[in-house]
C-alpha cells in the first residue's frame, strides 16, 4: 500500500512538472498573427484570367519564401484533371503563408489533399518551372467542394449550397477551419460550372 501511494505521489509530481513546463513554454512563446487585405475577383473573372485551372493532389512542400513582404510556400502537386490550359503531370503551387507565418484567413495546404485551383503562372517567383499562384481555391472531398477564398455572395460561383447531410465529413472539417462562413457546394456541379465558364 505504501508503495502504491509513493508511486501515485511520484506520478503526480511528474504531471505537475510536465504541466508547468508546457505552461512556461506558452509564456515565453510570442505568437504571430497575419491578416491580409486581398484583391479577389468574381468567379467569372478568375476563370477568364486564369492561365490554367487544375484539379490537383498536393504533394511535398518544396520551399518557404520570406521575400517581397508576403511569406509564401511552394508545394509540388500532381495534376488529376486539366480544365483549362496545358500543363505537365506535376506543377508547383505558390501559396500565401508559411508554417511560422500562416495567414488567418486561408489555411495552408496539407500533403494528400485535393483541390480545384484557378491559377496564374508566376512572374516574380521563377525558381522552378511550371509554378503557379492561386486566384481561387476549392477544397475537394468526395462529392463536396469548399470555397476556400472569402468572397461576397455576388462574386461566388452560382451553385446552390449543399444541404448539410450530403457534405462529406472532411469537407465539413475543412470548412470549420476557416474564419468565415464558407460555401460548401457539390464538387461535380462545380466542375461542370467551371468547364461551362471556360467554354464561353
Amino acid at each position, binding site marked *: 500500500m505504501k508503495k502504491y501511494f509513493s508511486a501515485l505521489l511520484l506520478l503526480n509530481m511528474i504531471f505537475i512538472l510536465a504541466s508547468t513546463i508546457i505552461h512556461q513554454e506558452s509564456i515565453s512563446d510570442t505568437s504571430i498573427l497575419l*491578416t491580409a487585405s486581398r484583391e479577389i475577383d468574381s468567379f467569372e473573372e478568375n476563370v477568364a484570367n486564369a492561365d490554367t485551372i487544375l484539379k490537383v493532389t498536393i504533394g511535398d512542400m518544396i520551399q518557404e519564401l520570406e521575400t517581397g*513582404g*508576403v511569406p509564401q510556400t511552394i508545394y509540388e502537386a500532381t495534376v488529376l484533371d486539366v480544365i483549362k490550359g496545358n500543363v505537365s503531370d506535376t506543377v508547383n503551387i505558390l501559396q500565401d503563408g508559411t508554417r511560422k507565418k500562416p495567414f488567418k484567413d486561408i489555411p495552408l495546404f496539407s500533403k494528400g489533399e485535393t483541390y480545384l485551383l484557378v491559377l496564374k503562372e*508566376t512572374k516574380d517567383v521563377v525558381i522552378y518551372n511550371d509554378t503557379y499562384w492561386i486566384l481561387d481555391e476549392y477544397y475537394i472531398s468526395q462529392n463536396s467542394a469548399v470555397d476556400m477564398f472569402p468572397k*461576397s455572395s455576388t462574386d461566388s460561383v452560382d451553385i446552390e449550397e449543399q444541404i448539410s447531410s450530403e457534405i462529406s465529413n472532411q469537407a465539413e472539417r475543412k470548412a470549420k477551419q476557416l474564419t468565415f462562413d464558407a460555401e460548401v457546394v457539390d464538387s461535380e456541379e462545380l466542375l461542370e460550372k467551371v468547364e461551362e465558364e471556360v467554354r464561353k
Partner: protein
Amino acid sequence: MKKIKKKSLVAIAFLIAITLLNISSTLASTAIYGSEEKGYIVATHQLRDNRNTFDDSSLNSKNKSYVSHAVKVWKDSGTVTFKRSTSSPNKIVTGSNKDTSVVAVCTTNFSKTTGKISKFKITLIQNKMKHISDEKNKGTVAHEFGHSLGLLDLYESYNKNQLLYGIDSRKSIKPSKKDIIGAKYCTRK
C-alpha cells in the same frame, strides 16, 4: 498510512489546481470578443496601450498620404491617436510581391498569455496597390491599422459598411460605429 493518504490528496489537489490554471491561461489566449452579428471581432483579448507610434519613414509621399488618412480617421473616431516616430518598433513598409492576391498585410506579434500586442508591421504590396484607386488604398491602409489594434476581418455581406470588412469591395474608408466599439475594447485600460 493516513499521513501518506493525506499527502497524496494534497498532491492531487495541487495537480488539479495547476491544470485549471493552465486551461484558463490557454482559454484566455484564444478568446474572441464580439461577432459577425455585432459587427466587430477582437482577437485573443489583444490589448493596446497609449504607445501607438509607428515608423513609415521608408514610404514614398503617396503611401504616406494613405497612412495620414488612416491616422486621421482613427483619431477622428475618438478611439486612438497614432503618432509618427522613427524609433517606433511598429513599421509600415512596402512589399514587392507580384504573385499573390494580397494587397496589404498586417503582422502582429502578441503575447499568448496576456494577449498584449508587442509590435506590428503593415506591409503595402506595391505591385497590387498601383492598380487600385487612391480611395480604395486609403480604405485598405485604415483597415490594416484596425488590425494593428487587434480587430479581425468580417466577411458577412451585411458588414460591408464596416471598415473591418475583409473583402476589398468594402464600402467604408473610415471606422464605422461598430468598428469603434471593437477598437474601444482593444484599447481599453
